[in-house]
């Protein structure tokens, strides 16, 4: 069976097929696939026996449930007030310069997607960002370059 189908089936077995388990199932798909493709949303709908439009409508409501292709690592830089005041701009510039992509884009090798997000709740250690579920605080352009090059090395390139 195709891997997405079986993933969704397993998740539905684990959480249940009632409507209130839609979010955990979608989160489970994202953990493996990085984003919710049209195909996986239709499959989720089939598995849970609800209209695909409901799945799509719910997914698009939440900013962490991506419905467009994203890379293996999604970088979310906080842009809310304190981070914006404390040098988010320079951090973002350093990331763009290093990955050679603009905000909202994904690197050609499908590893990094760069996004901005609203308050992450680390205002006392601003600026902050998340790479997938990992949080990084007190960022400076130097620090962010170090963090990113670690991620790049993990993947055996550079």
């Amino acid at each position, binding site marked *: 069976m195709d891997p997405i189908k079986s993933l969704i089936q397993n998740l539905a077995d684990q959480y249940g097929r009632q*409507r209130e388990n839609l979010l955990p199932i979608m989160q489970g798909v994202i953990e493996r696939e990085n984003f919710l493709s049209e195909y996986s949303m239709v499959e989720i709908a089939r598995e849970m026996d609800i209209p695909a439009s409901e799945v799509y409508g719910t997914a698009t409501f939440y900013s962490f449930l991506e419905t467009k292709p994203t890379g293996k690592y999604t970088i979310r830089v906080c842009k809310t007030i304190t981070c914006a005041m404390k040098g988010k701009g320079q951090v973002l510039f350093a990331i763009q310069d290093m990955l050679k992509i603009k905000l909202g884009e994904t690197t050609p090798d499908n590893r990094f997607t760069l996004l901005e997000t*609203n308050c992450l709740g680390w205002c006392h*250690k601003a600026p902050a960002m998340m790479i997938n579920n990992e949080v990084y605080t007190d960022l400076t352009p130097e620090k962010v370059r170090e963090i990113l090059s670690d991620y790049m090395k993990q993947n055996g390139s550079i």
Partner: protein
Amino acid sequence: MANSYQLKRVDFIFRNENDWEKVLSTTIKKKPQELINELISSELKGRGGAGFPTGLKWKLTSEAKAEKKYVICNADEGEPGTFKDREILSKVPYKVLTAMAVCGYVTGAKEGFIYLRGEYKFLEEELNKEIAEFEYYCKEINLDFKIKVFMGSGAYICGEETALMESLEGKRGEPRNKPPFPTQAGFKGSPTVINNVETLVHTFTIFKYGAKKFYDLGVQYSRGTKLFSVSGDTPKPGIYELELGMSLQDFVYEFGDGDTKAVQVGGASGFLVPRKKFKDAAIGFKGKLTGISLPTGGSMMLFNSSRSMFNVLDNYLEFFREECCGQCTPCRVGCQQLLLGIKAVKRGDKPASYLDKLLRLTETMQLTAKCGLGQSVANSFSSIVENFREEMIY
């Protein structure tokens, strides 16, 4: 003037109390009515920002007749400038769990949820371990109560109680009409108590030390202590537990960098207080006789004179425009128009008097928006535009 400084530091919330088992087992030996009375006499009000009396909430839910009831801990802490709930859940999670179980005992609920925001996913594993240990103890003392962690997925509006319940039911997080209130019809239409993380911890303190100890702190109408998340232009950002009722002037003496121009109390949905009004402003719930009282979920953001208030407002409006759920027109269109409007005034495309039109728009939003998000945009907008009008124009 430095001698007027009188902030009262307190240490209840993060105090390490290893005896939660004892607190739980002795508390549930008392009658539910007794516990509700204890909470009511402590005058504890919700610490998420809205300030609804907690005892009354528990009472209403306990009186509601239903087969199933629920307890929800609201850990969808999304307000810009707040980060206290994360600290509570990582340092003293057992207090939150104990309080939820006691709430279950009082109201007759057998199930509880912790709605944790997606940004705090890294807390989930540790929290689940704590819950496993906690439920094991509940079984030992024959208390039937289960707790589940439910992860949010990055939506500020899900901190609104009814939106949170929609989300918990697997739907778009769009706020519901009220009434009915959650105490009557909450999660899946059943009576539900929904409390902020910090509120629950305060109930733990009250059950352990008695209502009087809590009541003796703070001022009239604003009893007890509160966690403050301090950020922005301050030499010591962080989380501090302080007595309610302090004057903003004292707060700025303690936390300001000497050049504080304004303080945003209560996050983007709260109020901005300019320097000249620090003296008259006190932190607490409405009802104080003199001066301005400012309720807050704990967010205190300081701005010094190097900051442009236009940029601050622009940032807030951008935030609201993105986080607005889009369900009701006043908020959906209002947030967009406010953002476009202040930019047009700044560019000179619109005359300065256009700001007054925008202020009227926020009044309309305050009156007609469905939930707290749309209603509270007026707070920061009017307090910034009225106090820093020239910065909006030039």
